[in-house]
């Protein structure tokens, strides 16, 4: 911590949150709000006089609420930066000043009630996301009487009670009577490995944490006796089994089975634990002074304060357990799907300090590689304007999620400017352009139309033409494959970078070519890798549905689904459902649709020809007038 605080190349931004990130690998721009701290961190020498006079008492979060702090306080003794901090929401008020005692006593004049939030505009090449996890909250389910019995505590609370810098100065006292407990129980898997309470996965660290805590008790209080109620002891890491064996040698009693019932003596606050010992098959009863819940680890909840969470800002997808999804679970375990963004620590999955440090090193190496290279190569999947076809309607500039298309910069040139470096390649502009005046490199119209035709060459009645976006739905299909989830063979996927690329023309072309069923699939709105491009997909599909209805084509034959990369099961389920819908489409229906659409196409071509004719006539007329004027 100290090293990070004084490193010449690390700028610490505490009390700060990232509000927005734009750009692309090598060239990100981040807006970071540094909230007012009201104390000058450089000037403050932690003399503590301000806190001494502060009349406010609040529960101390660092000490898990076992002791109190003031409204102006040092977060904890080793805090970096080593500076006091004024929690404005706890202060009696300084606009106008209601108390101001701290201000009076601060000799160095480091307190500034007029401090304001600052928004920093940072240019960075890479981003490491290490926002961690949180402990399972035992309160909503009142796990093992946690909310009712004072001597039932969590493993995090244990950490503070046993710590020399804790609220009891390292004296392990039980909350009800501040006496030393001698019979201490630990319950494992609280909130973990349960389909009904908490989360279904193993939280990875709780077994070893309990083993560590048993050793601390044996070391500090040799006469105490610990009992651990467990499902399985998972001591799989280097040196872990040794530690586990040591606790057995120290006399820790391991009981295989999770307690069914906890009772408390209302007088003494002692606890009685009823448990089925699944090794001996007997019902057992334990009298304990204190009980520690080894609570599991869960993904960090999004700050419900109206701000977008970092997961939303960076469009991070999540696996079914709620932790972020890697670009590849084995081969790119610290890469986010977006280039130049990496994960470190528990944001990816629950892990201990050693694994967090290891992963942080890997993330730093990945991020550093990009920075050291000095330049980055961008895939040649970008939009290009075809100036001859452009009618300057500006729709492209409106739909581009990356502001990569801007209205004409020169006065005499009405064509929009395409900024290639900013284009992320979603293809929404090309799909929305009413004049087909945008060419999408590597995902061009004719390439996609050729795929549609290839799919429908033989036996089209048995085929589903499915458009899937690269990042989510197509990857969801990959996940279904990796998990060997079986589904009917009817679907044929066409990959586009984003579902926003799926032009109405593609859908109509598929139906005109005899497709019984078409699927457009993309990311869930919050996962869209192109900010909000997926909203255009939705609007476009809705337009097609309306027109299908008008033309007498069943709208059910065009399906829209949002499938994330992690949702292999959903992908397989959707494919089964589509296959069922496919069976309801009759050859007559398809033949009729083809006729309708061919008629429509003929009409449109006629209209276009007429328009071209009028345009030519007007031009000729104008030419004549110009001549006349001359």
């Amino acid at each position, binding site marked *: 911590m100290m090293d990070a605080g004084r490193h010449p190349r690390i*700028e610490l931004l505490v*009390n*700060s949150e990232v509000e927005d990130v734009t750009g692309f690998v090598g060239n990100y721009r981040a807006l970071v709000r540094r909230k007012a701290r009201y104390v000058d961190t450089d000037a403050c020498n932690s003399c503590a006089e301000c806190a001494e006079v502060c009349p406010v008492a609040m529960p101390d979060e660092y000490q898990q609420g076992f002791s109190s702090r003031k409204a102006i306080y040092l977060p904890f003794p080793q805090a970096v930066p080593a500076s006091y901090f004024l929690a404005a929401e706890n202060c009696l008020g300084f606009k106008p000043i209601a108390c101001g005692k701290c201000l009076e006593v601060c000799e160095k004049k480091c307190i500034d009630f007029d401090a304001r939030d600052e928004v920093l505009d940072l240019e960075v090449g890479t981003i490491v996301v290490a926002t*961690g996890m949180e402990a399972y909250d035992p309160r909503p389910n009142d796990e093992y009487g946690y909310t009712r019995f004072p001597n039932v505590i969590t493993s995090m609370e244990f950490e503070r009670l046993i710590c020399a810098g804790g609220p009891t100065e390292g004296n392990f006292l039980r909350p009800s009577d501040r006496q030393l407990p001698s019979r201490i129980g630990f319950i494992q898997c609280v909130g973990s490995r349960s389909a009904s309470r908490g989360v279904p996965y193993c939280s990875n660290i709780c077994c070893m944490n309990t083993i*560590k805590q048993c050793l601390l008790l044996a070391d500090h209080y040799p006469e105490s006796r610990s009992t651990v109620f467990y499902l399985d002891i998972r001591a799989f890491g280097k040196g872990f089994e040794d530690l586990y064996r040591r606790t057995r040698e120290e006399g820790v009693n391991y009981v295989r089975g999770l307690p069914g019932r906890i009772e408390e003596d209302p007088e003494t606050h002692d606890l009685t634990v009823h448990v089925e010992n699944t090794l001996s098959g007997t019902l057992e009863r334990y009298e304990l002074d204190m009980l520690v819940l080894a609570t599991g680890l869960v993904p960090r909840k999004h700050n419900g304060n109206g701000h977008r969470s970092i997961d939303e800002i960076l469009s991070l997808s999540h696996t079914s357990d709620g932790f972020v999804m890697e670009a590849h679970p084995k081969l790119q375990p610290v890469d986010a799907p977006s280039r130049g963004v990496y994960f470190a620590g528990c944001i990816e999955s629950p892990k201990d300090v050693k694994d967090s440090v290891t992963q*942080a090193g890997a993330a730093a190496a990945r991020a550093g590689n990009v920075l050291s290279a000095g*330049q980055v*190569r961008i895939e040649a999947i970008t939009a290009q304007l075809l100036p001859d076809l452009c009618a300057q309607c500006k729709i492209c500039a409106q739909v581009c999620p990356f502001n990569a298309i801007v209205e004409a910069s020169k006065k005499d040139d009405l064509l929009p400017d395409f900024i290639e470096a900013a284009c992320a390649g979603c293809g929404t502009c090309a799909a929305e352009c009413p004049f087909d005046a945008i060419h999408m490199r590597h995902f061009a119209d004719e390439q996609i139309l050729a795929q549609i035709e290839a799919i429908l060459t033989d036996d089209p009645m048995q085929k589903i033409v499915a458009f899937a976006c690269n990042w989510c739905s197509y990857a969801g299909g990959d996940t279904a494959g990796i998990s060997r989830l079986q589904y009917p*063979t009817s679907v*044929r996927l066409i990959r586009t970078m984003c579902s926003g690329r799926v032009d109405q023309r593609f859908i109509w072309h598929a139906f005109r070519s005899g497709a019984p069923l078409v699927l457009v699939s993309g990311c869930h709105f919050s996962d869209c890798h192109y900010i909000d491009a997926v909203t255009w997909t939705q609007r476009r599909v809705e337009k097609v549905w309306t027109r299908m209805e008008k033309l007498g084509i069943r709208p059910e034959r065009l399906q829209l689904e949002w499938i994330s990369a992690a949702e292999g099961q959903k992908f397989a389920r959707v494919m089964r459902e589509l296959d069922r819908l496919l069976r309801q489409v009759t050859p007559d229906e398809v033949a009729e649709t083809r006729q309708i659409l061919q008629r429509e196409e003929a009409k449109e071509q006629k209209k276009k020809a007429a328009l071209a004719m009028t345009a030519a006539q007007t031009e000729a007329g104008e030419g004549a007038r110009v001549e006349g004027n001359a």
Partner: protein
Amino acid sequence: MTLPPLRIGVFVCDCGMNIAGTVDTEALATFAAELPDVVAVIRNRYTCAEPGQQEIQKAIGEHRLDRVVIASCTPKIHEPTFRRCVADAGLNPYLVEMANIREHCSWVHMKDREAATDKAKDLVRSAVGRARMLEAQDEKTFPVTDSALVIGAGVAGIQAALELADGGHQVYLVEKEPSIGGIMAALDKTFPTMDCSI
């Protein structure tokens, strides 16, 4: 529209038994040979392995291929591999197309060899159809801002920031709390070494 005649090579991967266990790759290869503009079809046990890649490079030279279609796994794994492979043989990397006959076919239709083979044929036909329309592309390079943003200053964020800074890069370490340290700072001792966490 008339297209200039192309010279497409199709490479069908068995992926050991991962694909060949379900899809009749022999029949698939025979089918691919009949597709328009296809001048060479080569079956391989593992196309992504070194010998498989050498085979592609050799075929590009021998058959003067101007498009390459690889029927194997998802492009999300090996598209970069094959792009590099053809680029080394002098072909523009954007003239490669992949047909995903593993994740989207052999692994999800394991009980129906015939239908899976038919689907694989369609996927190859679709990939060849697209390959015929592909154009060479040039990738652009952009300069990189030599600084990193590390979000969250718990043990992982601090470590990542230190590594990057030691490597000579400017780091912005963002923490929403008033001090760095995260959850680790509230732990007394850490396993398995039983030492202090701070």
